[in-house]
């Protein structure tokens, strides 16, 4: 893992305000995004984050935040 499990959990939590605010931003840019589409996009972002976190570090570093 690239980050510790606790670190990953915190990163997911920090994504919540980003997802919530992103909807407001894109609507003001002229893209009307529904609640369901926002939720789907948020799930995809979190999924991508989890995949990145689970992948082995290419420089072989271990998370040491635990």
């Amino acid at each position, binding site marked *: 893992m690239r980050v510790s499990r606790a670190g990953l959990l915190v990163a997911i939590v920090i994504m919540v*305000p980003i997802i919530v605010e992103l909807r407001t931003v894109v*609507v003001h840019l002229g893209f009307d995004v529904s609640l369901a589409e926002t939720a789907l996009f948020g799930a995809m972002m979190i999924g991508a984050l989890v995949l990145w976190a689970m992948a082995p570090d290419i420089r072989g*570093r271990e998370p040491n935040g635990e």
Partner: protein
Amino acid sequence: MSTESGTFLDQFPAEAKVVRTAFYSSFVALFVGALMGILQVLHRTDVLRIVDSADYYSLLTLHAVLLVLSFSVFFLVGIFTWAVTTSLDRGLQDLRYTWAWYGLMALGTLLAGIAVLGAFIPGLDMSAAVLYTFYAPLQAHPFYYLGLALFIVGTWLAGLDWFRSWWAWKKDNPDERIPLPTFMALTTTLFWILSSAGVAVSVLAFLLPWSLGIIDQVNALLTRTLFWYFGHAVVYFWLMPAYLLWYTMLPKISGGKLFSDPLARVVFVLFLILSTPTGIHHQYLDPGIAEGFKFIAMVNTMFLLLPSLLTAFTVVASMEHGARQRGGSGLFGWLRALPWRDPVFTGMALAGLMFAAAGFSGMINAGMNINYLVHNTWWVVGHFHLTVGTAVALTFMAATYWFLPQLTGKAIWSKSLGLVQVLVWFVGMTFMSNSMHRQGLIGVPRRTAEPQYSGFDYEVAVGSMAELNMQVIIGGTLLFISTLLFLTVVVMTVIGDKVDGLPDNGYADTLSGPEDAPLVLDNLKLWAGIAALLVILAYSLPLAAIITRGGILGPGGSPSPQFVDTLLFVGRVAADTVGGVIA
């Protein structure tokens, strides 16, 4: 710092009892206040209305007073008592005196609470639905004002207690610099006494006599102005113990040292001199105050961004130092090395992150022109739920996971649950405050039991009102759950068994210590004098204008009692004479 190792309980058992009692008092206030909070969320959004809408304002008053005064200030006096005792390495001068100020604060809270809850007892002619912003024309039962006065006097005596410890220490250590945690407690005490004097005058000279029927009327604008003289500075009173923890605990928990002791001292000096002459920015829409005075208050307020930005720099630099000590590397890679598993660290770090967002919405509030868009809307409520409701409250809850073992000799019951608790708070506040800000932008009012109007729909920019309300309900519910999780961990820890091997009491060392700070920073008399001078410059003319126009006891007419007329007359004659001499 103490040369004797062990927990705070081992080092100072009597003081630990005081701090523990103050913390428990704050937790009781937190529970009742949070309960009132979820009831308000459900009431406003029309999901569940268990009280009449007329009584909603009593719930709101109780929620605000218990959380922003009792929860935060009881915790604060605990933190500062720990900070002074630990950093001076000496017990308090007289514990009977210490318990006396704690007793005054507790009695004050009880009286104010009784006055508010009296509204729900049939046949009892008692009410205090005046909200936390308790200025005229709303009037409360005398118990409310008396309770608040006792509470504030209790905090003054607490401040004096910390000063007494420092004076005694100074006699034994005449050439030593003031230890940083004590310096922080003392500077905070100074501006608290300076700022709360305004509300003390308002309560004792006007509101309490008015409530008792001794005087018939008051000057509403004068009581408002005296309230806000205190009402903004009190924000920093809540915030300073959080800052203390960010400066003295967060670097240690990150695994490193505080980046700069001198910068921390500069920050606290700036708060001492700038916190109070800003209150009029809460009154931009008050017609009785000239625009020029409001502009001065706006400039003062903007200067307050400086110490907050210095804090962001110093605290993040300290965290980075800690992460690199733990093996972190890279431009951002060091973030991975931070102790995210520890709720003490994660809670404080997330609180700091949300405080940054609060800074942005605060700048909107502080701007004289743009404030008109959000004044008295739910935006403002969203803002202060990020400041006192997260930067302060979440830091306090996170710090509890470090302090509780220090005060009880018992290990935290479940650190994992503690981590979940701080994360749930962060998510809940994200949802709730985001919606409050957005609703404020479309004009949804604050302090309103039923913000639904027939024949009128808010023009929502994104989504719908139903979505925004749902966001508030989800957020408020998560916050209430987080509070229950927190209290569960506290109770289970307290009823647990004592253990050995707990970390020693202490706080962060520094990379750049007090020896690098100019001596003048420790000159508290100088900074207190400058703070008082700035207050006089910012407030003397507006107050004189308000009294001249509205009368000291209002409404209208010549100021009374007569001495005010006399003072103004003498002042005019003196000014004319000086002007004539110069000409």
